[in-house]
């Protein structure tokens, strides 16, 4: 029977009440006396020298309170990259400064070079129009191959457009080369992982207040990661002491990665608020979101798969160009390297893997982690080339994968790409997928499609990802400049209700519902008495934020540890109340009882006693009932899945529609199956969007041509099928206390190759020998490929 409370219950999301009734509090909703508005002057050219900026006219315009240019921030620090990558020759990556406002040069369309603070939005916009900037346009660097070949640099001071040239694992290079050279069959595929704009529903917004009385700042901002934002502003950019700066991420309308990072606008509003002594708010319009949010993906890859005569995988070798845009966003160097290269063994026992990634500066918006972050790129390359290989050697794509799967008795399994997978059962996932997708009925469905003049294709994919980032000791060795633990405080109030302060930030993930389920289960109390507090650095001990499907695996584990500490202390109090030793106390269903007797006190009585400690043994127990834990994971977690889909393709027009989509995932234990299903649905929508519709297009001058919903095609409900989602095949994570693996990104990782494999299959079924097509698989591309086949 499904539970109706605690771990495993499909509890309805409590936060949805405020979201759906319009009473959520977003950054731009926060208002106080004396509000002012910031608007940025942004470059209309992709690459240019700032000759002069004349703000005289603008400064005299109605309502204008202050104008800032790059000159005002020339002396403060830059926004750093969070991960140091060393090139194959051992040299460190190039890290050009990323200033608050562009200074000297503008480097992408949308690069802010000035900001106006005015009484109203309209006045600020008018004044921005009146700023006279003399910017001499230079040739734009857009294409990555040209960028590496040319002598025109995004950052002149580093004298190259190559950020780094990374090899993983460099020691495996020769063995991989040898395996490919001696292989019976090598399949090669060149592909593009298309650049995506995150498109959170709420655009970025930042609002700063300065409180002169205490020389204190409060920054409200659309962040997935308020503590990291505070740390970066304090330690690197403005130097405001951490104890003088509160960063609050209130309700945030989606992030998908783009709000992990610190952006210059946050620093600007802080500086402006201090200068004016008034609150300053900036809220991006949709065009600014397109131009300046960190984009995702944008890899150009060549992958080779070597096999022996029996179809056993001998080696994967990839060469990838990864676009990092004009500046290094905080995790931009980790995404194409350690979040990508380490996954290039997939679900397979392949003995040799070598990955080469060259990161390239271009005059485009910065590129960083976007839902899946590196792992979708890895999965896409692997699962596309495996499908191609199966076709080349005449094998069933599912059977070829199964033959090479890691088997359940091989865990823990050291992958050839350097990770140690703790648990999984890929054959069981595939079995379940074949069952719930009704694969047996495919032939009949194909016939029915053909009767309508349509081609029907079947595509399959197996993925593994690394979530719950990550052991600080490991990532430290790999170049991370931060630790990747998380923290939680469980505060039991005197009247028995709880506030749980968590470092993870919820901006759609449902933490306010799921985390109380964990605590309620452990304490045996009603989850409705437990509230989650998140997103406020003044209330929460510390946090490393929400990304990489880490919240439950890492922060949830911290919640467990803190709750265990609360239970231990509560047992001592109960033992004192019941006049026994704490070893005799058992906690069950919210009651502390003496083993083997009918003597007990309730959780609520213990809580009250903790705060009214009359007759308390103060030498043994402190008053109060509040505990904090920091949790640093022992390993990544490794969710995996088997996905398949069926597409219908109209050979007359090239239009593809996804008719059936099945996702069978191993997320380990599941706290709230309804939320997990919702997360998978969202990921599938984004993955199908990438596969069929979404594309970010810069022209040769670095102008962003797809900067609105007229040209950037977001998936709509009628582009998506009903999904079959199953997470019954969980193999618990072996190293975190909840046995959870993370589910936030899976759908976006597993679906793109599934869809494209199905499109290829559909074209093949129509007698067209097309072996590759790049995403997005638009009608034009499909039609053209079929004409040329």
């Amino acid at each position, binding site marked *: 029977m499904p539970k109706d409370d605690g771990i495993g219950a499909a509890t309805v999301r409590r936060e949805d009440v405020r979201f759906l009734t319009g009473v959520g509090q977003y950054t731009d909703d926060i208002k106080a006396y004396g509000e002012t508005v910031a608007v940025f002057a942004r470059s*209309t*050219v992709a690459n240019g020298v700032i000759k002069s900026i004349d703000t005289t006219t603008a400064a005299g315009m109605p309502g204008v309170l202050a104008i800032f240019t790059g000159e005002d921030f020339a002396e403060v620090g830059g926004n750093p990259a969070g991960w140091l990558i060393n090139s194959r020759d051992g040299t460190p990556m190039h890290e050009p400064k990323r200033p608050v406002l562009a200074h000297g040069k503008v480097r992408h*369309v949308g690069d802010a070079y000035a900001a106006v603070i005015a009484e109203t939005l309209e006045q600020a*916009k008018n004044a*921005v*129009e009146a700023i006279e900037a003399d910017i001499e346009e230079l040739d734009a660097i857009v294409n990555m191959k040209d960028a590496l070949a040319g002598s025109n640099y995004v950052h002149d001071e580093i004298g190259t457009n190559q950020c780094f040239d990374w090899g993983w694992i460099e020691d495996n290079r020769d063995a991989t080369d040898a395996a490919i050279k001696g292989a019976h069959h090598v399949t090669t595929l060149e592909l593009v992982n298309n650049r995506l704009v995150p498109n959170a529903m709420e655009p970025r917004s930042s609002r700063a207040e300065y409180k002169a009385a205490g020389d204190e700042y409060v920054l409200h901002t659309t962040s997935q990661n308020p503590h990291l934002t505070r740390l970066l502003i304090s330690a690197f950019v403005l130097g405001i002491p951490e104890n003088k700066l509160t960063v609050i991420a209130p309700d945030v309308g989606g992030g998908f990665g783009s709000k992990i990072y610190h952006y210059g606008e946050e620093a600007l509003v802080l500086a402006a608020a201090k200068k004016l002594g008034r609150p300053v708010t900036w809220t991006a319009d949709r*065009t600014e979101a*397109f*131009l300046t949010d960190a984009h995702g993906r944008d890899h150009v890859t060549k992958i080779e798969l070597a096999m022996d005569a029996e179809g056993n995988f001998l080696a994967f070798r990839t060469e990838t160009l990864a676009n990092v845009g004009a500046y290094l966003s905080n995790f931009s160097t980790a995404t194409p390297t350690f979040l990508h290269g380490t996954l290039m063994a997939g679900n397979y026992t392949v003995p040799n893997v070598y990955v080469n990634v060259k990161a390239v500066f271009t005059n485009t918006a910065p590129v960083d982690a976007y839902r899946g972050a590196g792992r979708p790129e890895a999965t896409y390359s692997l699962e596309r080339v495996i499908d191609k290989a199966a076709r080349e050697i005449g094998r069933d794509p599912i059977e070829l994968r199964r033959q090479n799967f890691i088997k359940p008795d091989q865990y823990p399994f050291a992958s050839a790409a350097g990770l140690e997978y703790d648990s999984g059962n890929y054959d069981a996932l595939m079995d379940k997928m074949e069952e719930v997708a009704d694969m047996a009925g495919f032939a009949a469905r194909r016939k029915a499609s053909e009767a309508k003049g349509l081609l029907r294709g079947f595509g399959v994919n197996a993925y593994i990802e690394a979530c719950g980032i990550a052991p600080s000791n490991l990532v430290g060795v790999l170049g991370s400049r931060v630790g990747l633990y998380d923290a939680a405080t469980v505060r039991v109030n005197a009247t028995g209700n709880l506030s749980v302060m968590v470092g993870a930030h919820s901006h759609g993930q449902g933490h306010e519902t799921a985390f109380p389920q964990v605590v309620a289960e452990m304490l045996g109390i009603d989850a409705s008495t437990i509230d989650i507090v998140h997103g406020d650095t003044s209330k929460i001990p510390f946090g490393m934020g929400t990304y990489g499907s880490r919240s439950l695996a890492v922060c949830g584990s911290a919640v467990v540890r803190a709750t265990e500490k609360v239970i231990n202390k509560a047992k001592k109090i109960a033992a004192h109340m019941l006049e026994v030793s704490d070893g005799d106390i058992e906690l069950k269903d919210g009651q502390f009882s003496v083993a083997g007797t009918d003597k007990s006190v309730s959780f609520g009585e213990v809580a009250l006693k903790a705060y009214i400690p009359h007759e308390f043994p103060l030498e043994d127990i402190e008053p109060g009932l509040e505990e904090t834990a920091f949790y640093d994971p022992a390993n990544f977690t490794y969710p995996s899945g088997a996905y398949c889909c069926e597409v219908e393709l109209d050979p007359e027009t090239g239009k593809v529609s996804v008719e059936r989509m099945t996702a069978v995932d191993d997320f380990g234990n599941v706290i709230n199956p309804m939320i997990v299903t919702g997360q998978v649905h969202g990921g599938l929508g984004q993955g199908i969007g990438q596969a069929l519709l979404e594309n970010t297009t810069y*022209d040769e*001058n670095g*102008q*962003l*041509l797809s*900067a*609105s919903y*007229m*040209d950037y095609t977001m998936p709509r409900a009628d582009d998506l099928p009903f999904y079959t989602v199953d997470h019954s095949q969980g193999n618990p994570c072996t190293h975190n206390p909840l046995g959870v693996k993370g589910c936030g990104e899976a759908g976006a990782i597993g679906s793109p190759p599934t869809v494209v494999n199905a499109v290829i299959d559909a074209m093949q079924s129509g007698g067209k020998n097309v072996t590759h097509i790049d995403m997005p698989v638009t009608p034009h591309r499909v039609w053209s490929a079929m004409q040329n086949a």
Partner: protein
Amino acid sequence: MKLSDSRTINADATTVWAGLLDPEVLKACVPGCTEMSGSASDGFEATVVQKVGPVKATFKGAVQLSEMNEPTSLTISGEGKGGAAGFAKGGADVRLEPQGDTTILHYDVEAKVGGKLAQLGSRIIDGFAKKMADQFFENFSNAVGEADPESAEGIEETTKKKGWFKKLVS
């Protein structure tokens, strides 16, 4: 964006050449032009109000003439800044080929747009540019040339449309 075409103008090459260099003619012929000043030798300053798809803006720009081989060819280059709407810049190589009493005007335009114009208007910019060129040359033909006797409209309005510029210079 590239645009190449040619137009037959009912005037001799000298008249066409003079028209191309005259700010008053250009002001009357550039669609949406509200101000035009300057000279062929020093360059022109122009203000043009135009709507490109969803983007409406006032463009202020400078136009330079170069490579001038009277009356056979010249190069026009310029840049218009539309503030928040972005910018348009480019050039045109113009060649005049006499043919009897008329002149064939050949042009090769290369232009680019940036900012909001590119972000919101890129899909329609080619069509827009062609429309602008069509309008310009229609206006220009009317200004400097004899009306086309082949067109019904021309027959009806011959007197009215009889090349006001040509009357001034001839």
